[in-house]
Every structure is written in C-alpha cells, then in structure tokens.
C-alpha cells in the first residue's frame, strides 16, 4: 500500500505568473552536466536538471546480439529508458512498463536523425538512459544526456540533440514545467531539436492548445532547446558545467 499520495497545490501559478517553485514562466530550472563519468561504458553523461538526475551511457559500435536484428547497411540504434525504483516517492516496480517502452522509442527516434548510422553497418549502438531521480521532464533530460553520451563515445553525429519541455498552466505558457505543473497543469509539450539544423526530432503534447498557444509553445521550446544546446557544447569542453536557474533570453 503506497504511503505517498499526490496532492494538487491550491495555486499552480499566481496572477503575476509566479510558479510553485518561485520561478517566473520563462525561467529554466538549474542544470548541471557532467560528461564521461563512467569507466566501463564507451561514453556517458550525468544530467541533473531541477530535481531530475539522469545518467546516460553508450556502448558501441559493437557486435549485434541476437544476430537476426543486424542491419547490413547501417548501425542498429537501441535505447532503453528506465526508471530506478527509488526515483519516485512511491516506489516504482523494476522492469519496463508501457510508459517506459514508449519513451524509449520516442528518445531513440529523437536521436536517430543525429547519428551517422550508415557509418557503422552491421553494428549495434546501445544507449541506456537511467532515471535516478525523477521530477518532470525526464524524457527531455534523457535526450540531452544520451546525445552527450553518444558524443563522448566518439560516435559520428550530425549535431547534438537538446531537449526541453514547454507547457500551459491556465493561460500562461511556461517553460520547463516542474512536477506540479506536469501533474496538474493543462498541457505538457516536450520537444527536442537537432542543432545546428534546428530540426525538431521529438514533439509530443498532451492537452488542448489553440493555434496561438501552440505557436507560442513551439517558439519558446525552440529557444529553450537552444539554451540547453549551448550548455551541452560547454560540457563537452570542460569536466562539467553547472548553471543556476536562468531566464530565457527570448521572452
């Protein structure tokens, strides 16, 4: 019997746009990125983003098992998104559920246009995304970490893929929704973008948006992904990068 029950806060967003964690609508949460922290994996990255802590690692190019999955003209890109049992207040049963199967697919789809899979015919590239703490936005943190782990493993890529969510809470469009907003807000719209090309490779949404709201979400999401992309580039140059909460420059 679980002992933790989610409760909706009285006010999700103030009249002046103040959010439950004190941010204003266009503030991102603090992000910390560390690349190459694991030894056995070929590439790895740890992303701490608000209360999320996401570890991604890559093995490959390596041999494909089972053999019948081998693709003769390109690499087989596999990805597993997995939540730790202790990543949520109520323990999550180990093993894949339907949500994690979908997110594994969505994150893999987001990375695929970035990877030169045709350079590694007949091989496997395995990406593991482990959610060690979860606090809304794990899939976009996962894309961001996985993309860095691929780069750290030396896999040839067209560019980095950076992710971020935007959402709607009442009539406010907010960037990088937190747990309360994800749970009780109106819309969450996770995105990921392949830079420099600005190609959208991940896009989902789960609530009603008018044409105007949708266009605004797209615009802000693109801008957020770009900020995350700048951090990614920095992280590949240094041991690790860390930024405090910062406001989006496009508002």
């Amino acid at each position, binding site marked *: 019997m679980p002992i933790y029950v*989610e409760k909706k806060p009285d006010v999700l967003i103030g009249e002046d746009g103040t959010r439950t964690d004190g941010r204003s609508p266009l503030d991102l949460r603090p992000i910390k990125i560390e690349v190459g922290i694991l030894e056995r994996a070929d590439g790895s990255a740890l992303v701490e983003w608000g209360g999320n802590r996401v570890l991604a690692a890559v093995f490959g190019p390596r041999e494909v098992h089972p053999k019948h999955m081998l693709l003769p003209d390109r690499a087989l890109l596999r990805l597993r998104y997995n939540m730790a049992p202790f990543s949520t207040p109520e323990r999550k049963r180990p093993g894949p559920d339907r949500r994690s199967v979908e997110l*594994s*697919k969505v994150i893999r789809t987001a990375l695929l246009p970035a990877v030169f899979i045709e350079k590694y015919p007949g091989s496997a590239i395995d990406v593991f995304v482990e959610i060690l703490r979860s606090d809304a936005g794990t899939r976009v943190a996962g894309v961001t970490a996985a993309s860095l782990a691929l780069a750290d493993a030396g896999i040839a890529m067209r560019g980095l893929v950076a992710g971020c969510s935007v959402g709607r809470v009442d009539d406010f469009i907010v960037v990088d929704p937190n747990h309360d907003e994800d749970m009780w807000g109106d819309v969450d*719209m996770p995105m990921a973008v392949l830079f420099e090309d600005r190609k959208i490779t991940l896009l*989902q949404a789960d609530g009603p948006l*008018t044409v105007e709201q949708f266009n605004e979400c797209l615009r802000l999401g693109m801008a957020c992904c770009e900020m995350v992309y700048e951090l990614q580039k920095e992280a590949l140059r240094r041991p690790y990068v860390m930024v405090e909460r910062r406001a989006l420059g496009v508002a």
Partner: protein
Amino acid sequence: MSEERDEIGSVLLKEYVLEVLQSGKRIDGRDPLEMREISVERGTFTKSYGEAWLSLGRTKVLVGISLDVGEPFPDTPNKCVFVSNVELLPLASPNFEPGPPEEYSIELARVVDRAFRSANAIDFEKLVIEPGKLVYTIFLDMYVLDHKGNLADALTLASLVALMRTRVPRIELGPEGNVVVKEEFFPMPVINKPVSFTFVKIGNYLLLDPSLEEETIADSIITLAVDDQGRICSIQLRKGYFTDDEIKKAYEIARERMEEVRSKLEEVI
C-alpha cells in the same frame, strides 16, 4: 518487427512514389491531402458493451469496449479508470507476431489514449459510483485486422465510434458495500470528439492518411489530434524530423478537415 518500415524493397518503391508525386498524385491515385474512404459496419452486437468494425481504405480495425468496476487511483478519487490496449493481430500482417505487446503497439495505444484524455473526450466524473471507493473501468481494446497503412487514425476513429455506441449498465453501491447492477443503461458520456490526422513526409511532399506503401518509405511521420474546438489536443512525432513550419502547416490542414471527418462518423453511429 516493430514497424512495417522495412517490409518492401523500399529503395525502388520510394523512387516510384516520388516520381508519381511529381505529377501531383499518389500511387493509389489520391491527391496528397486526400483521405481514404471511411466505412463502419452497422452490426448489432451482444457480447461487448460497444463495438466498431471500421475500414479506412483497405485497413480494417475492430474496437470493443468492456466495462468493469473497481477502486479509483488514490490521486484521482473522482475519476473513472480508462485503459487502452492495441493488439496487432498476427493475421493483420505477415510482420506481426503473436506475443506480448511490443513497442509499436504500445506507442499506438498511448497515442490513441492521449487523444481521448487530452481532449477530455469522456466525462470521467460521470462514471464515478462512490468517490474514492468505486468507479467504472473502461477498457478500450483495439484490434488491427488488416494492416494497409495508417493504423493510428483508423484506431482513433473506430474508438470514437465504439465509445459513442457504448451503453453503460447503471451500478449502485449497496448498503453493505456490495455492488448492485441495475437493469438500466445510460450512454457513455462522450463530451468531446477528437479526430486524429497522420501525415508523412516523403522527400518534400507532405501526405495525409498514408497508405502502407507510403508509411513504409516515409522519411518522417507525425500524428496530430484536434478536438471539437479545433484545438490541438495531442501530437506524436513518430519518425524522422519536421521543421516548425511543416508542423504548423500540418495543424492547419487538420483543422480544415476535421468537420468533414467528424460528420462522416456521426452518420454511422
């Protein structure tokens, strides 16, 4: 195999499809933004609480609704439980194998499920028997019978019809906490009717309602659902990539076509 993408010698097919598209038509003769015929069987049914056998072109799906009662989730004591499931029957395609649901069917189930939830299509609060204690469970079981492309839209359409046809037996909580099933029925409270539109991108062409061949060779695939008010209520970028302008265009098309599709469904219910 999780998707149909590799099933046909696809390089030649793609060349052919693109060549035909240059003439403004698709290989089955449709215009780029033309949907295939939708038809729904008017059958009666005795076992399921609501059912729809729907064809989208030559794609055939069957959706059945089952009902049950149980406890609500602790964080939503005032809502019924809604469960969606897609079975890619092995008789629907030589590429579908028997076994537990895989990535492809799970994604489809979640895409359909999200369209209904995000549009608040069903009044979940009307399906509460005793708040926090006893609510209905709606099972939306989606069967793919013949896979000729664009399962997402076919399943969303058939689900909407099946839900609108559903008759719910009235249930009360008896004095000793027992469940009393009345001999009365009320219609499923469908209060918004999301319609789903799937687009593929092949080269520079944006095509609506892809056939199996088009899906197989598509560079990119996206599914959008729009609600009664023309609001986007769910999106799933399912393959490849899109620019923001391409996505805005797809949304615009979906808004233009939604009334036509919705009125076609109203006819058959």
